[in-house]
């Protein structure tokens, strides 16, 4: 019999309205299309990561997909113990023969969002609100800033991080307050990469009649007409692909970039009116240039620094 695949969500939980949820959507799509069944787990503590991986591997789940860099260390440790099991990890590179490392070029997607923000912004001020001040989020921030500056060289990007405790990902109140603070400083497009906090951000932005940019999943539906776009990170595709490939999943690093439609900006009925033709054109142009390498979006991770701002 063909082994069931498995999906492990990180501490955020599968309904984080963000990338765990995206992963969940991917799995769901696979279920709908193939009618197959899969096993899913939510972490509740650091110590459980290894436990969960081993238990799944031992119960024969294959492949095993996990969301989040936090699994990297453990996976690196236990993968060799289960050579016949395939693993896929998202947002982290783990160099093991039976592991597929899926990394996204968030900077590229964010760059596009930045370009759109640049064109939508009348004040020339854009806002970015991250959850915790960690490298991954800087990747988003830096790409966004580059895209924005590319269209509005004189423009300004305001940057806030919500907090330093896990609560930072679940504090819509503070998120809203940060958004209001940025708006009061002139920001008219605000990009939230902050999990549950983002909900508060986008809400405040919509209330103020400004534009919001969602993250990870397509969040345009949250406030139709008030969401400029969402920087979608197709974790769902990654999961879906892994599930489809099943045991034949190819190990190694899998880069989900613009070209691979791994990242991008969501344009749907909820924001169609906001996306002008030239905006669309600009986005397409940027896409092309990035693909051709004419535009090299800087990746924060390469030097822990951002050229702009």
């Amino acid at each position, binding site marked *: 019999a063909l082994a069931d695949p498995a999906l492990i969500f990180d501490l955020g939980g599968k309904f984080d309205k963000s990338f765990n949820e995206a992963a969940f959507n991917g799995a769901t799509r696979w279920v709908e299309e193939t009618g197959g069944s899969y096993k899913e787990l939510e972490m*509740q*503590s650091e110590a459980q990561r*290894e436990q969960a991986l081993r238990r799944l591997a031992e119960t024969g789940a294959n492949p095993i997909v996990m969301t989040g*860099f936090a699994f*990297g260390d453990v996976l690196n440790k236990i993968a060799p113990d289960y050579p016949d099991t395939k693993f896929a990890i998202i947002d982290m590179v783990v160099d093991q023969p039976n592991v597929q490392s899926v990394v996204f070029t968030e900077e590229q997607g964010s760059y596009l969002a930045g370009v759109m923000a640049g064109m939508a912004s009348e004040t020339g001020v854009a806002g970015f609100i991250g959850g915790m001040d*960690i*490298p991954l989020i800087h990747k988003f921030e830096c790409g966004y800033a580059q895209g924005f500056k590319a269209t509005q060289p004189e423009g300004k990007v305001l940057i806030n991080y919500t907090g330093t*405790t*896990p609560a930072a990902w679940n504090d819509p109140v503070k998120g809203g307050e940060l958004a209001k603070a940025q708006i009061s400083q002139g920001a008219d497009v605000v990009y939230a990469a902050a999990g549950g906090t983002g909900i508060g951000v986008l809400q405040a932005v919509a209330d103020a009649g400004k534009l919001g940019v969602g993250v990870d999943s397509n969040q345009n539906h949250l406030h139709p007409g008030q969401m400029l776009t969402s920087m979608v990170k197709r974790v769902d595709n990654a999961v879906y692909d892994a599930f489809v490939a099943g045991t034949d999943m190819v190990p190694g690093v899998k880069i989900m970039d613009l070209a691979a439609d791994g990242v991008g900006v969501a344009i749907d009925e909820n924001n169609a009116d906001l996306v002008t033709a030239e905006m669309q054109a600009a986005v397409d142009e940027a896409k092309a240039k990035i693909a051709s390498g004419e535009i090299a979006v800087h990746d924060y991770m390469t030097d822990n620094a951002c050229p702009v701002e």
Partner: protein
Amino acid sequence: MDKMPKWADVILTPLISLVLAMAISALVILAIGESPTEALKTMVDGALGSSYGWGFTLYYTTNFIFTGLAVAVAYHASLFNIGGEGQAMLGGLGVALVALALPWPHWGIALPAAMIGAALFGALWALIPAWLQAKRGSHIVITTIMFNFIAAALLNYVLVNILRPVGSMDPASARFPEGAHLPSLADMAAGLGIEWGKNTPVNITFFIAMLACVLVWLLIWRTRLGYEIRAFGRSEPAARYAGINPVRIIVITMLISGALAGLMAINNVMGEAERLVLNAVEGAGFIGIAVALMGRNHPFGVFLAALLFGFLYQGGGELALWTSIPRELIVVIQALVILFTGALDNMVRMPLERIFLSMRKLGNG
């Protein structure tokens, strides 16, 4: 001249309370449309049913023993140390710095060094609130709350900007060198040729924790310092009459308390993760408050309470992992256990006392 025998007070009462808590929990589980018996079975099997389960239960227990003892020690000086969380975080930092400082040849050398690091950092993080309380009368509850937030910020900064290996996405320190890896109980058992708790995080720190219980017990009830701590905690004027220096007691007590909280890092950082991660403490500091209060601030009580919470943690984890029951259920169960055994205990004790009294009266004639 007690109203009922000691055993009834320290064993019977908590047991009945526990049963009540479990009964209510069962109702909650029913309410969310799951089967209590199944849930209980999963929990017991998952936490106590196998050496594997025990391996996790005891691992969590170890964490809670340290944070519980930390709160308990301070409590005897009537200092309410809510800062266990932050002190444990700093302890983790201490461990990481020590472990990464040298290519340790053998854990036997790394362990004591790391323990010093953990205790030192934890103690230092408690020192400032202690000092402010003693000298300026700044309420220790506020300052320790604040220091939890500050610790989180500090750790966030250090991990992202200093300890994180270049190019790593994960805000965590590098792996500790081989020589700084603590033997897990599984290894130790294997050494004795026993197959026990393979791949479980519980490690030698568990014994250190139990030793800590004994030492704290000795400290509080058998040493001069403990005597002074308890006396000061009960009445400051009396303490001054007896020539006990309040400032000294407050500071020393908090240093000990902080050190204990810090030592938790030996278990989770050095013993389990073998590197320092952002989310290392995971609220164990706050659980410590419940553990200490439920354990009536007595090391043995703390041990039992920690074991109970270890069980709930692991059992609950299993519940969430392998059933459709949401992980939050376990938080509810924890709450009910704390409530019934810790706060509503008189609801059970009072009737019991009446029963025992009347029984005694009958006995007397």
